[in-house]
């Protein structure tokens, strides 16, 4: 399967920037690669940028939470950045929230959150 989401390494931070609407298997592939890379690169933090995503439904949200909790168990931080206003609204109406998972407006603020906290 082609890699849909490149994971960039900047120092001890991994940045996964989602560029297009992902299928369920693409999201699972991303989950797998992030967890591998966190170990391989000894990363201390992961940022997932979802600003290009027009929809986050129950499966996408569930998988993002699973990624966040697994990364945390590795002793690293995870921040989700760029959830679009319409996406946020439909997530809340659907009953989906990301409890305990830090979020930030954009990549810059996500990096600030990691460096500051």
């Amino acid at each position: 399967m082609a890699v849909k989401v490149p994971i960039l390494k900047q120092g001890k931070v991994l940045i996964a920037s989602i560029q297009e609407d992902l299928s369920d298997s693409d999201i699972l592939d991303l989950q797998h690669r992030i967890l591998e890379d966190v170990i391989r690169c000894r990363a201390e933090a992961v940022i997932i940028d979802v600003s290009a995503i027009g929809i986050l439904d129950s499966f996408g949200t569930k998988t993002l939470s699973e990624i966040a909790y697994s990364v945390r168990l590795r002793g690293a931080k995870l921040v989700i950045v760029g959830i679009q206003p319409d996406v946020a609204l439909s997530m809340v109406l659907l009953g989906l929230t990301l409890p305990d998972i830090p979020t930030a407006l954009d990549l810059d603020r996500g990096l600030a959150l990691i460096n500051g906290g």
Partner: protein
Amino acid sequence: MQHPPDVLVQAIRYDTDVISARQLGRKRAEELGFSRPDQALVATAISELARNIVVYADQGEIELATIHQPDRVGIKITAKDRGPGIADLESALADGFSTGNSLGLGLPGTRRIVDEFDITSSPGLGVIVTVVKWSRR
């Protein structure tokens, strides 16, 4: 300007079909003048219904029909499959209930984000979910 066809059908079998269906729905909602939040809700509802087909029934289809009324326009989304059906509809519509490995928010969540919701199923005869989202003018 040529009118787009009033009924669109997307066959659902693979998870990439889920993406096609929700993109089709978002585009149609946009063409009909739905607000951006409502476009996202239409796409989300389609995504949940289409995923249920892939996960629980192997294959089926999503039909999108436009409803024109004097004071409003709507999109009727019909999700049909010929899978095993749902034995306990009441539980399937309750938050947090799932027989798959999911959050159990697909059907109850979808019901919350649309204006009309109807589901029929019998064991062995598949599932038909019909929802309507209106855009007020």
